[in-house]
């Protein structure tokens, strides 16, 4: 089963949705939204409620020559931790009932990568027995191999909870997280480059040739948009010089040099960048 929810850069959602479209996988069920989400939109016409729209969590299926594939696309994650656990349990109830043996969740990892670079995919399995396997996926990296970090971390939201609940039920699961530049984590647009990296890994695992040209086109457009936005910010002198220099180092593939600034200053710079991007449209992604 492959699961993708809305999240940073919509990396997971775009990856699984694209795969569903490419495979033309038909829908076979959904999780009732009422206990998890508020209605997002109502349509009232001539005094009658014509439609009450809720965020959907939809299952799709596809038969490959050597295995069956389940896909789950979630338009929203429950805000409440308890509800997230309940939803993860419901997803796994379906997975178990249908004899699913492996779960993959697709998500984003926020890191010091430049937007012109090819994102790697952080892979986190829910059992040590899978470590050697995930090393072979290609363009993947374990938490312990990420620059400036150790092997510990946190996967927030359903992508993480699902791994945990699956572990408790003895179901193997792997979270695949495409890298997203830290300065774009609050940007109001998707980050298809990371979705492409995740799909390349999934295609490799499933031995599926995937035509990702549509995502590549979108990624090119987004990259142009990012460049234009950053140029505009630099011209308006709203991009701190230190941040601009750091981005240049990242562009050249050099490790970020946050120099003598403190963690507090770094946080403030990141928050400032977030604010700049939020100001672009007035919306969060």
């Amino acid at each position: 089963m492959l699961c993708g929810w809305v999240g940073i850069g919509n990396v997971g959602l775009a990856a699984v949705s694209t795969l569903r479209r490419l495979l033309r996988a038909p829908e076979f069920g959904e999780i009732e939204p009422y206990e998890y989400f508020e209605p997002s939109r109502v349509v009232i016409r001539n005094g009658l409620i014509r439609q009450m729209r809720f965020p959907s969590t939809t299952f799709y299926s596809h038969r490959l020559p050597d295995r069956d594939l389940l896909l789950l696309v979630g338009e929203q994650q429950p805000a409440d931790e308890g509800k997230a656990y309940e939803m993860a349990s419901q997803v796994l109830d379906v997975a178990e009932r249908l004899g699913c043996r492996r779960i993959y969740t697709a998500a984003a990892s926020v890191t010091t990568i430049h937007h012109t670079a090819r994102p790697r995919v952080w892979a986190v399995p829910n059992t040590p027995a899978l470590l050697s396997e995930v090393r072979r996926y290609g363009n993947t990296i374990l938490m312990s191999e990420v620059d400036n970090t150790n092997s510990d971390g946190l996967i927030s939201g359903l992508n993480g909870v699902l791994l945990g609940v699956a572990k408790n039920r003895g179901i193997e699961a792997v979270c695949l997280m495409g890298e997203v530049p830290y300065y774009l984590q609050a940007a109001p647009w998707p980050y298809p480059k990371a979705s492409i990296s995740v799909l390349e890994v999934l295609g490799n695992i499933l031995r599926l040739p995937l035509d990702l040209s549509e995502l590549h086109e979108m990624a090119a457009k987004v990259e142009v948009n990012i460049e234009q936005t950053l140029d505009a910010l630099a011209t308006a002198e709203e991009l701190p010089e230190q941040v601009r220099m750091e981005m240049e180092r990242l562009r050249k593939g050099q490790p970020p040099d946050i120099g003598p600034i403190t963690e507090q200053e770094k946080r403030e710079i990141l928050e400032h960048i977030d604010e700049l991007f939020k100001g672009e449209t007035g919306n969060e992604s």
Partner: protein
Amino acid sequence: MNSSRVKPAMNPEADRAAAGAPMQGGAQGFSSLRRARLFRFTFEPRLKKSSFVVGWTKDTGAVSPLAADHLIKASGSNGFCQIEPADFYPVGGVGVIDDVARFPQSRFFYSERNPVVILRADEPQSNRYEFLNAVLDLAEHYGKTDLREPSQAEALYTINGIAAVTAHTTPRRVFAVFTDAATQRKLQERVPANANWQGPPHVSTYLLWLAGQRHLPGVSLWVEVPFYLSDYEDYPSVKAAVSLLSTMLGWDLDLGEMDRLAAEQNEKLARLEDDPQIAEKLRALEEGQSLDREEQMELIEAVGSVLKGSP
């Protein structure tokens, strides 16, 4: 309207409750409710074929709470039940407003002689689906024409104000949203204007939709409130809501108090005419013209100064 107090039906549980002991559920009563654990009854009225009215604490022009309060008072309704707050509101402390501690409330009132159940509640902050379904459980329970029948409430009514680009000098229009076409046909002639809207649903609309899913007939009434009165108690709007609702319920309410409060408000607002520029804006609104943001702000400010002292 008969003003004699309602005499509760005789039963041991009710007597126990009347003596101050909380009820734990009767053999044929609320313990059969699907979400019985969410309710705290102090008395179990015996009602049949009740209508159900919902008034929320916060609302544009305070239409919803004031209309509900007026109906509770005028119908001689008594409180009999609450929804336990812990699942639906922050209960880690109390808010203090006007020097008084406030705690989330969702209280049901009933009147046997009419008969009606009125909910006066703060909007739930979480688990709204569960909360609203609990409300509908009660609406169904007291809407039965016979306790053995699985029939439904006479009708569910919600009341709300809605900010509109209109002047206070024009009559308040009321728009309606219905659960279904049959209910619309039945009640249409009393509420001529149907609402149209696309966007995030109000809690009343969510409740109405859930009622429709349960085949409970219902209608949401939306009373226009001049936008510059949204943060005040707009009595003409409240009166419009109460008047229409009492007609729909078949009540003959004395609206004298409402008339007095509306007249007092209009008297204060008449002072706006002293300022020619503000008067010009009001004329524009009366003629159906819109105001730009700056003009709207000027009007809001002027209204604030003449209604000083109003909440």
